[in-house]
């Protein structure tokens, strides 16, 4: 079965290394999402897999074929472009059937497929329109349909929802999530949007500065980010980072901040043995902090609430802890009246620790 294997893929534009050695292993029928900040090389990676951009170095395997020197048409790939890339002179039906007509599918088969995919994307009533007569969201779906009628080994999506308004985007995301259960195919999906990434992905690949920072299931990335970048990138609002120093107090290791002291989670004692006396970064998710007095022995923080933002089911508290800004997410139901200094607590195991030099997580 066509799993995808990428080995030491590199791309240089002149002296600039945009992709500096990428290794990926994607299982068959997996929905893989590439995320990362703008300019980190997501599109370039996708275009190299598609064959639209030549790799400077490395291998791309689809199933048991090495494809990195093949023309796009010989790679057995379908792609949804970020800017739709519809054929302006063809109506929707002809846009969608172009690949099938080139491959000389029988007409009845082509019609059946177009009808099925068009129904799935609710664009059945648009089949005889030219792209110029469609709205952005409709074009987006046509672009999607053009890829989905095909029998490709791999489907590539480059930020396919990026140009939609929030409502259409949610609706399309739901359609995609449903669809990906029905069409079990290899999909690689590029997005900036973490909600898309978290909801759609079997596997998320976080890219930054031309390298893979971490890959894995969405919940693994959320629970155990491998480094500071991933910790700050996955999760919204982003993780709070507090500078601390690992010290000993009365024989017990503690994390000393400027105006706060945190206990060391027992599960992390061993890993931290060599860090005594050194600076660390402690990470706490906004949702890990609970207001009030916790159970005995639970680590506590006193936060100075500066602002409470009500955003529906949740409220976001902007607080200060010493010199650091700390964001807290609370359930709006439990929103406590209260300003100024308030006690908060958290589960010791929800504390993340990072080495500030290597930026890697310490576990």
């Amino acid at each position, binding site marked *: 079965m066509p799993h995808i294997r990428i080995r030491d893929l590199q791309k240089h534009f002149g002296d600039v290394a945009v992709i500096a050695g990428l290794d990926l292993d994607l299982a068959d029928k997996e929905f893989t999402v590439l995320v990362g900040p703008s300019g980190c090389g997501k599109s370039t990676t996708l275009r190299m897999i*598609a*064959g*639209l951009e030549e790799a400077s170095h490395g291998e791309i395997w689809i199933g048991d074929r090495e494809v990195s020197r093949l*023309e*796009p*048409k010989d790679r057995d*790939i*379908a*792609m949804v*472009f970020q*800017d*739709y*890339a*519809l*054929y*302006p*002179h063809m*109506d929707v039906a002809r846009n969608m059937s*172009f*690949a099938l007509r*080139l*491959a000389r599918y029988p007409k009845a088969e082509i019609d059946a497929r177009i009808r099925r995919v068009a129904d799935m994307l609710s664009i059945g009533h648009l089949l*005889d329109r*030219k792209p110029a007569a469609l709205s952005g969201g409709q074009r987006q779906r046509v672009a999607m349909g*053009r890829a989905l009628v*095909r029998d490709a080994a791999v489907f590539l999506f480059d930020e396919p929802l990026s140009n939609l308004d929030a409502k259409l985007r949610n609706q399309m995301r739901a359609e995609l999530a449903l669809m990906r259960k029905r069409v079990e195919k290899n999909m690689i999906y590029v997005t900036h949007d973490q909600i898309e990434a978290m909801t759609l992905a079997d596997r998320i690949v976080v890219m930054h500065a031309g390298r893979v920072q971490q890959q894995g299931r969405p919940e693994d990335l959320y629970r155990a980010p491998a480094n500071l970048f991933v910790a700050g990138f996955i999760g919204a609002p982003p993780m709070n980072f507090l500078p601390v120093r690992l010290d000993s107090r009365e024989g017990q290791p503690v994390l000393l901040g400027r105006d706060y002291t945190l206990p060391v989670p027992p599960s992390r004692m061993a890993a931290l043995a060599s860090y005594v006396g050194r600076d660390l970064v402690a990470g706490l998710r906004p949702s890990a902090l609970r207001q009030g007095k916790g159970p005995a022995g639970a680590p506590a923080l006193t936060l100075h609430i500066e602002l409470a933002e009500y955003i529906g089911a949740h409220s976001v508290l902007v607080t200060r802890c010493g010199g650091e800004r700390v964001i807290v997410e609370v359930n709006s139901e439990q929103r406590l009246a209260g300003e100024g200094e308030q006690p908060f607590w958290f589960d010791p195991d929800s504390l993340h620790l990072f080495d500030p030099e290597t930026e890697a997580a310490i576990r």
Partner: protein
Amino acid sequence: MPSRQGLNRATPYLFLAPAAAVALVGLVYPMLRSVWLSFHEWSIGTPPESARFVGLENYRWLLADDSFWISVGVTITFATAVVVLEVVLGVALALVLDRDLRGTSLFRTIFILPMMIAPIVVGLIWRFLYNEQFGPLSQALKALGLPGIPWLSSPDMALVSVIIADVWQWTPFIFILALAALQGLPASAIEAARIDGATRWQTTLYIKLPLIAPVIAVAALLRLIDAFKVLEVIYILTEGGPGLSTEILSLHIYKTAFVSQQLGRASALSNLLLLIVLVLTVLLVLARSLREGRAGKE
């Protein structure tokens, strides 16, 4: 007082008025004058008052004149041949040179030079090239041991030769427009075609050509209109000969006006030429809008 609404409606015409005035003086007046003249008999050098009204006599005479019909035939043959050849060659070259390879920009520049040469000079260049004793073409044939070609001296060959000269000069026109159109095509649509499994040739046939077709159609129309009016190059190469074999309409008009000095008949001829070009233009515009109408409904 005009209503606001009325004022708004009149405003666009107000802005168009200066242009309309210029068009009236520069275009409509000469055309009307030419129509007026075609109903008269008048010779160069005599005062306009001496022109004699003859009604449709000039037209009747023309339509009965064999040399007119021969000239129409030559013109249509010439115009069709040059437009077809120029479109095919120009588009083909644009397709070949539409890529970023080393040297293509130099080649493009060299290639559009013929278009920038004054027509008179083009005529002189080709007269030299076609010279049957010492022209380079004849010399080359001789060196290869091949028989000479009567470039300009045989009636059949002469028409071919003037067609070649025109194609040489004006293929670049189609070429640059086609190239500009190709380079303006959405790169992503072409990438999409590659992903959809199209070969280079299929991409050209199904994506690139249909997308640049409107530009090519306009360019071809411009060339067609121009080909009906071409004068200088043929005048210098053949003066319409041998016999009437290359006497296209504009040359026929020129000769009627300045050799036979029959300005009335020349005007009648010009009007007929104008009519032909007008009909062609309308036909092409109609054909295009019809096709678009059908495509829209499809």
